C-alpha cells in the first residue's frame, strides 16, 4: 500500500483466525493509513466481518500480529475504545426509544454528558438529515433512516477510526451514494474508515480496496491500482472502418511496445481492437496518429477509453485466485 508518509491506523501481518472447516481468515497482511477509506469487498462469508472484529479486538488472532491505532486490540483501554466507532452489520436499534434516545444511549456509553450529547446530536442529525425525525420512535423509522441513525450513533463520540460493516446493504442507490458522501466527508476531516461491502461498484469511493475471498485478501490497492493490476493498464477500444485492416493494425501497434502493453481483437468482434496502455486518455491521440500515419492509412471509425466495470475486475480477480486452486485439485 502506498501513502507511506501517513501514520497507520491499522497494521496487520499474517493474521489468522481459523474457525475450522476452512472457515475464518488466513494470512491477512494489510495496512490502513490514517485519514483514508479502506473498502473491504468480497462475497458473503468471505471474512469481511471477521477481519473487522479482529481489528476491533472482538476476536483474538491465533496467528500473526495486528495493531489498531497503535495498540494490540485485545489490550485496548477505555481510552482506546473511545477513539473507535462501529456500525455493526446487524441493526442495534431500540424500537421503543426515539431517535434522540437511541443516540443518547449510545453516546452515554462513551461517557458523554447530557450537554455534550445535545450539542453533538444537533450537528450530526443535521449532517445525516434526520433533524425532523429526532422524536420519532425507532420502530417507526424506514430502513434508510435506521442506517443513518446508526451512523450518527457511531459518530457521536467523534471517533478517529470508524468501522462500518456493510452499511449500504439493502438500501436504495440514492441513499447508498449519500452514505459514501458522508464517508468521504468524514475522511476529508481526517478520520480513518474501514467499510465492508458486497457491492463491488462501491470500490470507486474508497481510497484503498481489499478484495477478499475465502478469508484471504487477494489484493489491496487503490481502485485504479486494482484496475491496472487486473487489466495490465487501461484499455482503448478502437473500431476500424475496414475490418480488412485488422491484421495490419495489430502488427503496427504490437511493434510500439514501449507504449502499447498488449493489443488483441475484442471478443465477438471483427473490427474492434482492445489496446492496453498505461493511461488511456493520454495515449489515445498518439495511438490514432500511429494508425492513420500508415500507408495505406488505417482508418479508425471510433475510439474511446474502455470503462471496464469493477464487477468485471472483481470477477477476474476471483477467477485468477480460483485458477491455481482448480489446477491443484485437477
Amino acid at each position, binding site marked *: 500500500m502506498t501513502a507511506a508518509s501517513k501514520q497507520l491506523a491499522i497494521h496487520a501481518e499474517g493474521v489468522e483466525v481459523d474457525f475450522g472447516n476452512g472457515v475464518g481468515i488466513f494470512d491477512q497482511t494489510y495496512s490502513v493509513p490514517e485519514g483514508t477509506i479502506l473498502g473491504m469487498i468480497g462475497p458473503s462469508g468471505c471474512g469481511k466481518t471477521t477481519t473487522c472484529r479482529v481489528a476491533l*479486538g472482538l476476536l483474538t488472532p491465533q496467528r500473526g500480529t495486528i495493531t489498531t491505532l497503535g495498540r494490540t486490540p485485545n489490550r485496548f483501554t477505555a481510552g482506546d475504545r473511545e477513539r473507535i466507532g462501529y456500525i455493526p452489520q446487524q441493526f442495534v436499534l*431500540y424500537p421503543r426509544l426515539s431517535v434522540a434516545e437511541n443516540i443518547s444511549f449510545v453516546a452515554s456509553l462513551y461517557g458523554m454528558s447530557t450537554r*455534550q450529547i445535545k450539542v453533538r446530536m444537533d*450537528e450530526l442529525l443535521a449532517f445525516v438529515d434526520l433533524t425532523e425525525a429526532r422524536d420519532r*420512535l425507532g420502530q417507526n423509522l424506514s430502513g434508510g433512516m435506521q442506517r443513518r441513525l446508526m451512523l450518527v450513533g457511531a459518530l457521536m*463520540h467523534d471517533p478517529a477510526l470508524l468501522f462500518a460493516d456493510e452499511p449500504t446493504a439493502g438500501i436504495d442507490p440514492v441513499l447508498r451514494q449519500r452514505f459514501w*458522501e458522508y464517508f468521504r*466527508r468524514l475522511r476529508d476531516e481526517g478520520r480513518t474508515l474501514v467499510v465492508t461491502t458486497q457491492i463491488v461498484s462501491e470500490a470507486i469511493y474508497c481510497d484503498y480496496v481489499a478484495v477478499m475471498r475465502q478469508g484471504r485478501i487477494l489484493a489491496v490497492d487503490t481502485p485504479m491500482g486494482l484496475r491496472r493490476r487486473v487489466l495490465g493498464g487501461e484499455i482503448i477500444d478502437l473500431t476500424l472502418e475496414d475490418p480488412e485492416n485488422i491484421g495490419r493494425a495489430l502488427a503496427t501497434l504490437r511493434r510500439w511496445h514501449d507504449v502499447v502493453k498488449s493489443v488483441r481483437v475484442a471478443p465477438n468482434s471483427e473490427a474492434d481492437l482492445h489496446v492496453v496502455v498505461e493511461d488511456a486518455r493520454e495515449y489515445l491521440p498518439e495511438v490514432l496518429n500511429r494508425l492513420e500515419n500508415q500507408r495505406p492509412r488505417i482508418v479508425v471509425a471510433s475510439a474511446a477509453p474502455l470503462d471496464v466495470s469493477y464487477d468485471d475486475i472483481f470477477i477476474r480477480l476471483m477467477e485468477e485466485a480460483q485458477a491455481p486452486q482448480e489446477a491443484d485439485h485437477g
Partner: protein
Amino acid sequence: MAELSDKPVVASRETMMTPEWQRWLIRVRAYFWKEVNEIRRQPLLILSLIVGPLLVLILFGSTYVNSNPRVRTAVVLPEEGIPGLEEEQLRQVIGLNFDLRLITRNEAEAEALLAAGAIDLIQVLPDNIFQTMRGGVSPEIAFTANVINPLVEGWVQYLAYAQVNEINRALLVVTTARAQEEAAGIRVRVVDFEGKILEFEQGISEARKEAAEQDLKTFIDFLDELNRILPPQEVLAQHSDELAQLRPILTRVRISLRDVRRALLDETLTEGLLELTNTRNDLQLLSGTLEIFVNIAPDRLVSPVKLSYRNLRGSAYSAVVYYSPGVLALLVQHTAITLGALALVRERLMGAFEVFRVAPVSLHQLIIGKYLGYIVFIGLATLALIIAMLVIGVPLLGNWLQFAGLTLLLIIASLGVGFLISTLSGSDSQAIQLAMISLLLSIFFSGFFISVESFAPVALPVVYAIPMSHGLAGFQYLMLRGLPPSLGSWLGLSLISIITFGLVVIITRRQLLRA
C-alpha cells in the same frame, strides 16, 4: 435529499474532557434511562402490572365466600327413618358441613347421581339404629365419595368425622333425655320402695310374703331397666362426682335387693336386719342421685365441656386483606422476574452485546444500570399498589422503613432470578416460559395458598430459593401483625440476591466475550 451540511462533523475536543468518575456514572445512567424509557413507552404493560393485580385482589375479596369446599351430598335414609330425628333436624345437622342436595330412601338413585358426577358424596344412614345400639353394636353411616381433588377428599373425611360426632352427640342427647324420663318414673318407685324396706325391717307376715316377693321382683326389674337405659359411665362421671356414683349405687342396690329376695324366700329375713337398713340407705342415696340426674339438661350431660374462643386481634382479617401481602409479594417478584428475564436475552439476540464490547463500557456498568432501571420502575409500581391497598383498607402496621427495605431486597432478589433466566435463555419465548414456570413454582411453594409446613423437607430448598417465600412471610409480619420480618426473611433474600448477581455477572461475562 438535502445537500450535505458544510459544518464539520468533528466534535470539539472540549466535549471529551469529562472526568473519569463522572463518565463511569454516565455509563451506568445510560442503561438506567434506556430501561426506564423503554418501559414507560408501554403504558399497557404498566397498567396491567399495577391495576391488574389490584383488580384481581378486589374481585377475589368481594366474591370469596368460604374456603371449605362445597361437597354436594345425598343422604339415604332407612325405610322407617330415624326415630326421634326429624328430616328437618337431619337437614340442619348434615347441612352444617355438606351441601345437602337430596334426601332419599332409594340408594340406587343416589348411586346413579354419584356415578354421573351430579353429587360428590352419599351418606347411607343405618336402619334400626337404636336397636343396633342396644345390641351392643355400633351402627355405621356409610360414606361413599366420588371426588378427584385430594384436598377435597381430605375435607370430606374430616367433615364426615365431624358429622358422625355431631350425630353421635345428638343421639346421646335423645337417649339421655329418654333415660331421664324413665329414671324420673323409677325414682318415684325407689321412694316408694324405701317404705317397703322399712316394712320388711319390721317383719312380714306369711300372708304378705308372697306379695312382697312379687313387689321385690318387679322393683328389681325396674332397676335393671334403669341400669340399661342410663348413659355410659363416662358420660355420667364427666359431669359430677355424685353422678359418677349413680351406677355403683344402683349396682349395690340391685345386689342387695336380690339378697333380700333370697332371704325372703329362705325365711331368713329377720337375721339380716342390718343389710335391710343399708339397702334402705342406698335406696335413699339412689333416689337423691336420680333426682340430680333427671334434673340436668341432657345437653349439659352429653357435652359438659363448652368452647371458649378469643382472638387477641379481635377477629381475623378478611380474605382480601389476608391475601394482600401475598399478592404484593407475587406482583413484585413476577414483574421483576418477567422484566429481568427479557432484559439480557433480547439485547444479546439483537447484537447489542457486540456494540457494548466495542464501547468503553464495563460489564458491571451494564448490570448495575439495568438493576437500577428496573428497581426504580418496579419500586414505583409497588408504591402505587401499596397506596391502592391502603385505600381499600389493607393495613401496614409495621415499620415503614423496614417495609421499604424488605421490598427493595425482594425486588433485587427477584431481578437476580429474572436476569439469571435471561442469561440461560436462548430466546424471548424461552425466557417467558421460564418466568411462567417460576410463577407456578411460587404459587405452589411460597406459602401463598398452601402452607410451607405442608411440604416434605425435601421441598424446602425449593421453598427457600423462591424470593416470594421470604417476601410473603416478611410482608405478612410487617403489614398484618406489625412485627419486624424474621431474620430468615432478610437472610434468605440477601443470599438469593448475592448468588444470582454473582451468577449473572459470570455468565454474562462469558456471553459478552463470545459476542
